[in-house]
């Protein structure tokens, strides 16, 4: 099911002019504060009528200003997790959660109440009303409410912003399961947390001043040095695909990538499964010789493809590792000392523990 | 009475018309505050700035006389009135009033409230005296003053009504079909009392033959001494 968005809208001083596609999986919208992310989502949800343009999901045209078509929000069946929770103050948590269930068509598939309550830790809150919930509790109820309306697509506007890290670590895999499970629920996801986006998203849409700056598969956009200012220096890094080939007793798993094997802890996938690894540029060390006696067990032979000096003292090194592309961030001095240049063969050391469980997906 | 001082008169609403004319003819400015007799009596008892009070109900004047109010002179009635039965449609006068219920059919008989409005109280006395009260009571339309009853008949909301002869005379859209014999209810009098010399002067003017001509023109009769 593909979401196609092509809209123009004038909002105060902001001229929004956005076109993108979100086919299956999770499409992240990323951009600075006030850049138009919520406005775009509102247009998809039907809470905003764009001045001009077209929005469609699968075969259904939601908006087409050319033909005057406009499907009201209630008919779109999109589960919207708002930036502000917007819980119904007069209803208990339970009634908030089940509010949308009755409007779903009889056959609609979707999450079950018990699962969602367990996932979000809402059991002790069910009889309470939103007025007394804490910030994070409200946000969790809002997520649950959207999930339980059995939508055809999820729109999530900074859904995890006020949640603690452990709770995020519980919710993220669930969203991955929604994306990958039988429902194959497409998700449009706004977040300022690059690690969330990098972990979850299949596609990335970078917005700036109401316009799309870059869009495409996560790999490409994340590795695009031009995106670094928006993503943040610490967060840039490549994503590579791997196949799980063995689980050892000590908890380490062996994964095959095109350039060799890696030993990683905490891999939950079955043997034979293909998983996604995120390798932060700053977690890659380059060495001219194969290093010995290191605690790090993951060493890959790589070839330098590009050397992209950053604005400051660092440089982004584009590496080819087998068929995959890896990004390394090193100091300019190291570039000079190691004479890093396109074509140079060297070794990339990936620390085993840098690839946290959270950054493995699909 | 060329050099008389200005006067403020508190007067019963059913005197409107006649009193307006008389005020205009008087040699000094006359301001009239119209209201129901009960309201007037209470206001005067409470110290209203009235020079003269004219009520449509002797009972209220009796009440007022018992209050802590000093009159500038004796109370006297300045006019009297009669009850008539009126109809909306122009019909033959009713020679036999016992035909009224039949004529009324399912319509309403408009009159002042049986207790609260003097005209209503007189009408009830009369209807009781001729044994029509019980028959007509369910079909009454009792109003807050006699002019409202008149208006009901004038608009046709009620086919018949019992009002003062003065009202019937002033309203062209009603027809008098029966004159109520004056001996079948208490006398209908308009007692007045002055509270100042100016009021007393105007009261004397109201009792004067010149004023009585105006009263007569509005259908009032002279009050018996």
């Amino acid at each position, binding site marked *: 099911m593909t979401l196609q968005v092509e809209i123009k809208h004038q909002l105060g001083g902001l001229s929004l002019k956005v076109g993108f596609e979100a086919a299956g999986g999770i499409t992240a919208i990323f951009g600075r504060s006030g850049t138009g992310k919520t406005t775009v989502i509102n247009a998809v949800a039907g809470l905003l009528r764009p001045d001009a343009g077209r929005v469609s999901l699968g075969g259904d045209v939601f908006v087409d200003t050319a033909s005057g078509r406009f499907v009201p929000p209630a008919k779109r069946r999109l589960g919207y997790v708002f930036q502000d929770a917007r819980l119904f103050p007069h209803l208990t948590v339970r009634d908030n959660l089940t509010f949308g269930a009755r409007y779903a068509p009889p056959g609609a598939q979707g999450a079950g109440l018990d699962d969602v309550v367990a996932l979000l830790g809402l059991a002790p809150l069910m009889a309470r009303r939103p007025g007394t919930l804490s910030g994070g509790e409200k946000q969790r109820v809002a997520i649950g409410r959207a999930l339980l309306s059995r939508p055809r697509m999820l729109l999530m506007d900074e859904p995890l912003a006020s949640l603690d890290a452990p709770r995020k670590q519980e919710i993220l895999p669930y969203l991955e399961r929604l994306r990958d499970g039988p429902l194959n629920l497409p998700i449009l996801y706004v977040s300022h947390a690059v690690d969330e986006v990098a972990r979850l998203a299949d596609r990335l849409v970078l917005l700036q001043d109401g316009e799309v700056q870059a869009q495409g598969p996560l790999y490409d956009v994340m590795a695009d040095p031009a995106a670094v200012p928006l993503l943040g220096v610490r967060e840039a890094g490549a994503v590579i695909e791997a196949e799980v080939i063995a689980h050892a007793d000590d908890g380490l798993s062996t994964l095959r990538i095109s350039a060799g094997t890696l030993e990683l802890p905490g891999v939950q996938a079955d043997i034979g499964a293909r998983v996604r690894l995120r390798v932060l540029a700053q977690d890659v060390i380059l060495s001219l010789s194969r290093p010995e006696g290191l605690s790090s067990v993951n060493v890959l032979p790589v070839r330098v493809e590009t050397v992209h000096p950053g604005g400051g003292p660092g440089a982004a090194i584009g590496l080819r590792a087998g068929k995959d592309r890896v990004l390394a961030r090193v100091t300019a001095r190291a570039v000079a000392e190691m004479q890093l240049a396109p074509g140079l063969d060297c070794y990339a050391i990936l620390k085993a523990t840098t690839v946290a469980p959270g950054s493995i997906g699909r | 009475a060329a050099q008389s001082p200005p006067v403020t008169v508190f007067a019963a609403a059913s005197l409107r018309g006649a009193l307006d004319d008389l005020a205009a003819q008087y040699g000094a400015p006359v301001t009239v505050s119209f209201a129901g007799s009960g309201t007037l009596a209470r206001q005067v008892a409470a110290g209203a700035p009235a020079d003269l009070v004219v009520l449509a109900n002797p009972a209220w004047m009796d009440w007022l006389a018992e209050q802590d109010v000093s009159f500038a002179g004796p109370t006297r009635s300045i006019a009297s009135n009669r009850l008539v039965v009126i109809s909306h449609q122009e019909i033959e006068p009713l020679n036999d009033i016992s035909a009224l219920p039949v004529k009324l059919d399912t319509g309403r008989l408009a009159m002042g409230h049986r207790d609260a409005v003097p005209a209503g109280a007189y009408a009830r006395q009369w209807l009781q005296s001729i044994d029509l009260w019980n028959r007509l009571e369910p079909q009454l339309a009792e109003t*807050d003053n006699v002019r409202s009853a008149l208006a009901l008949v004038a608009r046709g909301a009620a086919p018949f009504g019992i009002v003062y002869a003065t009202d019937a005379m002033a309203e062209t859209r009603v027809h008098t079909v029966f004159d109520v014999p004056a001996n079948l209810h208490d006398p209908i009098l308009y007692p007045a009392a002055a509270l100042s010399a100016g009021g007393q002067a105007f009261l004397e003017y109201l009792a004067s033959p010149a004023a009585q001509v105006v009263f007569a023109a509005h259908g009032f009769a002279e009050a018996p001494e």
Partner: protein
Amino acid sequence: MTADSAAWEALRLSLWVAGWATVLAVPLALWVAWILARKSFWGKSLLNAVVHLPLVLPPVVTGYLLLISFSPNAPMGQALSAMGLQLAFHWTGAVLAAIVMGFPLMVRAMRLAIEAVDPKLEEAAETLGAGRISVFARVTLPLIGPGILAGAVMGFAKAMGEFGATITFVANIPGQTQTLPGAIWAALQIPGGEGQAVTMVLMASAVAVAAVLLSEVLARRVSARIAAK
């Protein structure tokens, strides 16, 4: 009929009339309030002014206008009469008068409540699949509960106290259309009738206090539920 039983009879009729007026007027006032709060259309200002009119005009005039419209010999009155509905000189007309006179109060209270509802909550309900009617029934309506209650109690109180329009439209017939205000007024028109009037004023006050208390208790229950947003 003794004076006392007349008072009780008037009280009974007043409660009956006020009850009916409240029940009938609440949905209508809610609808008008909703339109005034949420819609914009040609003639909205006019509608708004018309709703306020019974407040500005002396009650007698309103009663008189009702009489002209619904008297047995007016076309509308005849049409309704043919349908079995008599208004003029009937308690049903007292209900109508009470509705008309209380309408501005009810509409205003409800409108203020509707305007205080955050439309973002209604939007949220829409995204969850709720159509207009569902949104209104499940979100707007419960949120404006205190406002509706306030409107209802104002309407009820006004219906209990309405005198001028009622007496003009349906007259003041003991046992038929004499409500408590009519009876109180009548008592005050008789020298020495104050004693009886005081009794009835106390009755009316007791009803008012009871209604207000009840509405406060209900409102507190409603808003305790919503608590701090």
